[in-house]
């Protein structure tokens, strides 16, 4: 069964600094990978997704992620963090890209941004 790990439970960065959130997945075939963000008290918003092709994917809000098959990783990056980026970030994997394939979430990484 597919699974997702996010090694960092909580990360604090200074505003304007760069950010990298780690994600590792376990799945035998080519996974379909997602990053979602959850602001306090809010629902889940899709930041970006990887299905195939270019391993560097661009998302909303200036985020990008790189799929590395050899490392089973899909790390999220942002070159300059804004205070509004403080939120919970979830990496997720689906076994297929059709709409009925369930998405499995990692445990999440909480991001704090200090001025």
């Amino acid at each position, binding site marked *: 069964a597919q699974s997702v790990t996010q090694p960092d439970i909580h990360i604090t960065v200074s505003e304007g600094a760069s950010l990298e959130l780690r994600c590792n997945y376990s799945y035998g075939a080519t996974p379909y990978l*997602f990053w979602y963000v959850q602001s306090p008290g809010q629902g889940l918003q*899709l930041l970006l997704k990887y299905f195939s092709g270019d391993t560097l994917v661009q998302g909303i809000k200036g985020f990008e992620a790189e799929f590395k098959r050899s490392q089973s990783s899909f790390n999220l990056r942002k070159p300059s963090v804004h205070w509004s980026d403080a939120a919970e970030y979830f990496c997720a994997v689906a076994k297929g890209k059709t709409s009925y394939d369930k998405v499995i979430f990692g445990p*999440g990484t909480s991001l704090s941004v200090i001025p």
Partner: protein
Amino acid sequence: EPEVTQTPSHQVTQMGQEVILRCVPISNHLYFYWYRQILGQKVEFLVSFYNNEISEKSEIFDDQFSVERPDGSNFTLKIRSTKLEDSAMYFCASSGLGDTGELFFGEGSRLTVL
């Protein structure tokens, strides 16, 4: 922009009571899901629903839970006899046909069982 809406936003209930959480998915979507997030924990898959039947369910989705699409627009999650450990945020999601793979989530319904 179309969105998934959920009601109620917060419900408090006594242990043993029945609860129905309601969701209105995006209108042209055909696949529907419920996820649960216990406070401070990860988002867990409960059930997926397509063509008026359950496609897949997790081990969490036991006989106390049921889902229904009663009228072609609403998608409901019923918990027949709530337990303390059912206290969580429940998220509804929907997705459309094609290779999008994207789930569109509602804002969630917070359930507190006393």
